[in-house]
């Protein structure tokens, strides 16, 4: 489903050149749950932005659904992105001026769904995530856990093939964090591919595979959670 070949990203300012990703190659198959880990500044978010088609790589290849998309224009990326990718962020990134319903509705609007279709789909997913009773509330009236649940609703409402989660529990306490991880686990069981950037070993344990980055390079690709846990214990 996703394949990168020697993917690089270099940030240039007038005087400094920073290599955020250095020839990263890996593959993610459909239905996988993959965690990306590594210390701050190792390139996790850069990788996620490129995988999420929010940014273009500086070099290498990126195959998304068997298409080479590394040199796509912003418009092409936007098109591909809105049909196939859902995002969940650490800071939820809900629009404060829009209600819960309106926030979740957003991707459907841009996909051109009719108002009645949108209503049906949004209510369906709000029911599913048990946040229907808050549909007319605004983000700032909700707890962090509830906000993240709304964000997950928004990520899945358009039924994307893949969900990219960037530290989804980073701003939540452990109870709410677990709740969100269970939601992601459920989605994965129903066939959605999930790529999650995280600092948390606990969250990573939900994944089937962990990609570890250090200074822009992959250091290990662990196959099993057990191994991860042992490796973590060994550290």
């Amino acid at each position, binding site marked *: 489903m996703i394949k990168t070949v020697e993917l690089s990203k270099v940030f240039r300012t007038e005087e400094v050149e920073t290599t955020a990703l250095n020839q990263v190659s890996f593959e993610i198959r459909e239905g996988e749950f993959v965690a990306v880990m590594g210390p701050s500044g190792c390139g996790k978010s850069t990788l996620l932005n490129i995988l999420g088609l*929010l940014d273009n790589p500086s070099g290498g290849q990126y195959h998304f659904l068997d298409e080479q998309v590394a040199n796509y224009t912003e418009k092409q990326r*936007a098109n591909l*992105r*809105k049909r196939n990718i859902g*995002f969940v962020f650490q800071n939820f990134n809900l*629009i404060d*001026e829009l209600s819960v319903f309106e926030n979740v*509705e*957003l991707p459907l609007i*841009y996909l051109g769904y009719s108002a009645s279709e949108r209503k049906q789909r949004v209510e369906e997913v709000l029911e599913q995530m048990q946040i229907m009773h808050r549909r007319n509330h605004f983000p700032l009236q909700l707890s962090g856990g509830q906000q993240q649940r709304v964000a997950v609703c928004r990520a899945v409402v358009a039924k994307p093939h893949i969900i990219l989660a960037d530290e989804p529990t980073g701003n939540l306490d452990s109870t709410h964090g677990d709740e969100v991880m269970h939601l992601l686990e459920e989605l994965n069981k129903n066939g959605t591919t999930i790529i999650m950037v995280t600092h948390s070993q606990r969250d990573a344990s939900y994944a089937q595979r962990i990609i570890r980055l250090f200074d822009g390079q992959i250091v290990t690709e662990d196959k099993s959670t057990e191994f991860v846990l042992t490796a973590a214990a060994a550290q």
Partner: protein
Amino acid sequence: MFRNYITIAWRNLRNTLLSSIISILCLAVGISGAIIMTLYLNHELAYDTHHEDHERIFRMEGIYDMAGSTYHMAITPFPLALAMEEEFSQVESFVRFFIPDDEVKVAVGDHEFQEPGVAFADSSVFDVFTHDFIHGSSRGALAEPNTMVLSRSLSEKYFGDENPVGLDLNVGGNHYMITGVIEDLPDNTHFKYQALLSMASQDREMVYVIDPELFWNINITHTYVKLHEPGDMARVAERMPELLDKYVTPMGDMMGASAEFVSTPLRDTHFNPVMLSPESGSKTILLIFSMVALFLVIIAAINYTNLATAKAATRAREIGIRKTAGASRGQLMLQFLSESLLIAIIALFVSLLIVELLLPAFNALTNNGFVLSDLIRPGILVQILLITALTGLAAGIYPALFLSRMQPAIIVKGHGDQRGHSGTMRKILVVFQFTISIILVGGTLTVQDQLGFLRSKSLGFEPDNTAVVSLQGSASRGQIETLEQRIQQHPRVTATSKAFSVPGKGHNMNAVRVESEEGPQETVIAVNYIDHQFIENLDIKMMTGRGFDRDMRTDHSQAAIINETAARKYGWQDDPLGKQIFMHYDDEGIPQTILRVIGVISDYHFLSLDHQIEPMMMIMPENPAQFRYVIINYDAGAEEEVHAFIEEQTRAFDQALMPEVAGLQAGFMEAFETEERQSSLFGFFAAVIIVISFIGLFGLSSYMINQRRKEIGVRKVLGSSLSGIVAMLYKEYLRLILVAVVLATPVTWWLMSRWLDQFTYAMDMSFTPLITAAVTAIIVAFLTVSFHSLRAARIDPVNSLRAE
């Protein structure tokens, strides 16, 4: 989707209330200016188009050449229209107007009214022009002598709701029967008559009525012709020389003068300010004010743009989220444009309120009668909606481009501050705003200085503590001395004199011959008939020779006093006394009048200040009926008392006389009424633009300084003083204003120098208005920025750092 845009736009408006109010207010003021200009432009450009056949109607004008001077006038010889009808098959009909020099007295019962809009007209006026008859009909309405047609408002003023057709009215001492009442003419007609008297009732003494063919040399009528086709005028112009050869040239040759006739389409007469045209407007002024209105809208739009891009940081997250949710750039642009459109529409409603408040002032400045309901006319409504939409788009286009360009990858991580990008653009826009403001303020101040210069200019005579009574058109002119004696009886009247004309009023131009070494030379000279007191009473300086002596027989009609310009022009500087001036030549070329120069006076402004002083002579006539004015000198401070006395005496003297009492200087600034009005209008718009600019700066600095809170915090932690921080913040804005000053100075200088060029008497261009404008801009900008800077600089650094 659109509903979603509007929803978020509305909630955004509420959440950022201060900046929303600023944006809406500024746009509202901009739109108000544009609405008022739209009204004004529509009004000005539609002059005389209410006449059904306006495309086929032309005003005839004469270009007269007399002894080297050319005069382009809106008046033509009386027989011109008849000759044109006879010679040119293209002429369908014509109408001639004769407009009395002064207001005409209308007596209704015991009431007297002084009416300005009375004219004599041919009965064909209703064939040429379009008039709706409320009472009576156009058929034969002005055919008979002593018949007249009234406008609706005059009819209501005199008779209320009564139908006055068949009633008699005393106009200027003669009786006229009312044969019809017409609807009032619209304001935008170049010749707004209120009452028409039949041409056939013109004074029987005026011989040209009896035998018009003889009077090709008397230019007193306003002539309008209606052709069969609008394009026919080209053919008429082509054949005009034939007409001239046949009728005009023979007589012109005899008089040493020549004439040529041209035409102006009715619709353009308003913008063709030829001499003696009833009223005229200026296309340049119209253009300038349209530009000012455009600037107003642009500046208001700039405020919106600046505030919107300054808010980018707070909008960045939303943009990022929308982009990750699949929004395309086009969709985001559409969103931001719908936001600015929404604001523009709200601003439109606010502006209606502003327009309602401003219209009275604007009407007073421009002599118009606009009302808010004028906006409901379909044509204007469409224009206003268009203006609103364009304003919204102009304001929103840059923010839309700028905001939609933001990269989602950067934004969603919370580094949405892309200040660097639009910062330059914002600075350019602020500089532009202030450049325009400074130009307008500098311009307004220059205009005012020039008007002050004209007002305080020495006229060469003493205009203070004088009053003038006009006896124009009065049968009692023969007894002017009786009136003069009566006025003299008032204890505070110190002196009186009489004249044919007074400074500031028109003077007769006469073709004469003057003595020279090469024999008599043809020339044109202004003539005034005065009594022996005039020069002394007006405190006009005698350079050589003496004034008129009432007791010397040869001083009456055989002596002349000339001004310095005349002496200089005729080469008589060294020895002017005794020189001869010949006038009134008969058919054999023999002068009937020979005048000897007995004195030279210093030049004084006998015409208004938009004319150079020209050669002029004064004659003391034998018959006092030549005089039309009594000039009264009185004690300082006795103005009211004396004016009342003069009025009373004049009324008692002749029932038909409506005393027109005015100060001697009154005529002088009249010529600059347009400039006075322009100056007020400029001042008005300049004030509005400055207010908008500063409101914009106020809003902008609030955002910009807010964005630097972290920097301010860090600087304070590191030990910077309050004044150090405030100075740092000032510097940024001061630099922008200084750039604006540098840009505005040469532009204002150039524009105002050109404006001053049009004046005969212009002050020297000075830097004072520019410096005042620049200093004003700097001070107000300082005050504006101070509000936010001081607040920001006082904030506890711990708070501002934590906020980051």
